[in-house]
């Protein structure tokens, strides 16, 4: 009885250790349509059986993917996408890191970059439940924010950019210098993961604001 428990325990432990280590091999499935999910599970098991030893992923130096980064429309219409080609990474956390790096680099097309020049990405984790934790260095808190609207656009340019490009990520929490932050400028609660806010997209505002968040059509 106890032996069986022990075996189960060790088995689960091995799985929990091996799965993150081999994530680079199968995590791309997470970014593909739901239909691939079953296959992904099968792939995981196979990987675990065959290859318990971690191997560093070869850098996918030659591959790139196109992502849409959200910046602020200068006239105040909201967030607008800017397409950019970034290095491909099989590991979702590393991929997100690249995308957020680009977002912090700012717009290359004259849009307002609410987060540019305010800190750099220190670490990104993605949990199995689709929560991305994005840790940004403390300079992000020093960047002046003109007010609540600016703060909303700054926070959600990041949250919406991630969830829009990577549907496996459902919620995003911004950490500042490895710690949980209260707010960036006194308004938006950063102490828990945030769902994206589609109403901040300029495209959702073609119609004048309607009370209580009706979904954009």
């Amino acid at each position: 009885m106890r032996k069986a428990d022990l075996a189960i325990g060790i088995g689960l432990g091995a799985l929990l250790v091996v799965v993150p280590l081999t994530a680079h091999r199968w995590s791309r499935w997470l970014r593909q349509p739901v239909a691939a999910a079953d296959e992904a599970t099968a792939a995981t098991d196979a990987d675990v059986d065959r290859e318990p030893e971690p191997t560093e992923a070869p850098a996918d130096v030659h591959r790139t993917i196109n992502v849409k980064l959200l910046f602020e429309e200068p006239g105040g219409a909201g967030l607008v996408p800017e397409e950019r080609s970034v290095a491909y990474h099989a590991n979702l956390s590393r991929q997100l890191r690249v995308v957020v790096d680009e977002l912090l680099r700012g717009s290359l097309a004259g849009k307002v970059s609410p987060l540019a020049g305010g800190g750099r990405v220190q670490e990104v984790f993605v949990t199995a439940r689709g929560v991305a934790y994005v840790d940004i260095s403390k300079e992000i808190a020093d960047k002046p924010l003109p007010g609540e609207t600016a703060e909303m656009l700054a926070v959600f340019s990041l949250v919406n950019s991630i969830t829009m490009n990577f549907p496996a990520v459902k919620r995003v929490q911004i950490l500042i210098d490895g710690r949980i932050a209260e707010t960036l400028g006194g308004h938006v609660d950063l102490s828990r993961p945030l769902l994206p806010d589609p109403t901040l997209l300029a495209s959702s505002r073609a119609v004048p604001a309607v009370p209580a968040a009706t979904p954009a059509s």
Partner: protein
Amino acid sequence: MNDGLALRSSLLSLLVLGSAGVPAAAEPVVILSDTHRREVASVTRGTVEMLPIDIVVAGMGVTTRTDAAAGSVSLGYQGRELILYHNKSLASVAGDLRLLSAPSIVADGRCLVPIDGLPLLLRYLLGKPVEWRAPLRMLLVGDVKIPRIDVSAFVSGDSVRIVLESSEKVPFRVSQGEGRVAVVIPRDLVEVKLEQERLTGGIVELLQHSPGKENVVTVTLGKRFQNLKASEQESPPRLVLEFFAVPATASPTPAASAASSGSTSTPEGAGPKAATPLPRAPRIVVIDPGHGGAMVGAQGPAGALEKDVTLAIARKLRAAIANLGYQAFLTRDKDEDVALDQRTAIANNFKADVFVSIHANGSRAGGAKGSEVYFLAHEASDSEARRLAMTEGAFVPPGGASPGSDLALILWNMAQAEHLEESSVLASRVHEALGEATGAASRGVKQAPFRVLVGAAMPAVLVEVGFLSNADEEKLLVNDAYQGRVAGAILRGMARYFERHGASAAN
């Protein structure tokens, strides 16, 4: 057998920790479960107090496995697994990550974890409630029976009755000192719930609870207090205290609790005659002037600061509210920074009927203009978030969430979730009234995850009165008459809300 094991591991830990030369904190922590009571020495690293998690769970049937190569420790219990990593503020729980207030330390087969993170981790691992009681320095595991004492107060015209009702028989000791009465419960493990803290009517002003080796409920007496009658009763066990007033010759003065407000509420037309008690409690509105002190908020091109505009409008709103016979309190009445959670806490302490946070907006787009009214976007409407909230909801960090608290993640204050519908109605009423009174562009009623609204246990809105970053609106927002119009509009919106929601909100 389990106890023997626990004892051995405790001794072992003392040896290990002792040999490592780590200073132990003054008082050990008591681990209390339905079957164990054990003391474990804590270790302080920097300002963080930590406990060896393997010793905390010793004797509870938890398996521990150290992976020296990965620098991790995994704890297993009934198929659930928790993994802690050396020098990382992360724990893996069922494949999800949880943040801790400080890094765990995995060394020499020991695993030190910040005490405040233990309840969250152990609740998951053991599948039962786990609670850290900082004042008692106790970690409660499982359904530990602790007497619960509910303190309620009933105010009538010339007496106040305070009842301490206990879930099981506990001794009470009543003593009367200068200006106050103390009820001592000579037990350390007692849960005391105060229904309210501030009382009106001037007989009793304040109820306070101080935990410790003995639990004490202190009753601060008011000017009208004359004498006290105490009696103990059975089934349910309770202590009843009756405080009687000086015979009423003078007219009663309401607003005993108006300490932090400059305005005392003198109802228009004096209201009911002195002899009859007030038919219902006056409405209480808590107004929050956004920002303050070093947190200047938005800034106009001509130099106007959000913190000044919000305070000016809030003061005008308070004055207007007092004229209606409501009570109004400000979360700040001068140029000072008040933590966001503190602002909400003030509204909760006053048991406000509504909470209105006043802000002025700012955008990088100079042309952005108009007012908008927000209520909370609560992510718990998302089913996953709701599930998380269920598992994490009971955890409140010791001392509450202080500003900059590392524990904020695990504080799931759901207070506002119950009031979202009323908040949305209040937001609509205030938004309509603002549009009528100011003619300013409307940006509508919106939802956002604003920190200041999260913990409000009453209908709560945040009003963006206009854009300070817009030169035209800045001129209006610093104008005395315009500020008055805005304040009047917010009041009208509130009054319309009260008309419709009067009956339910009154009690």
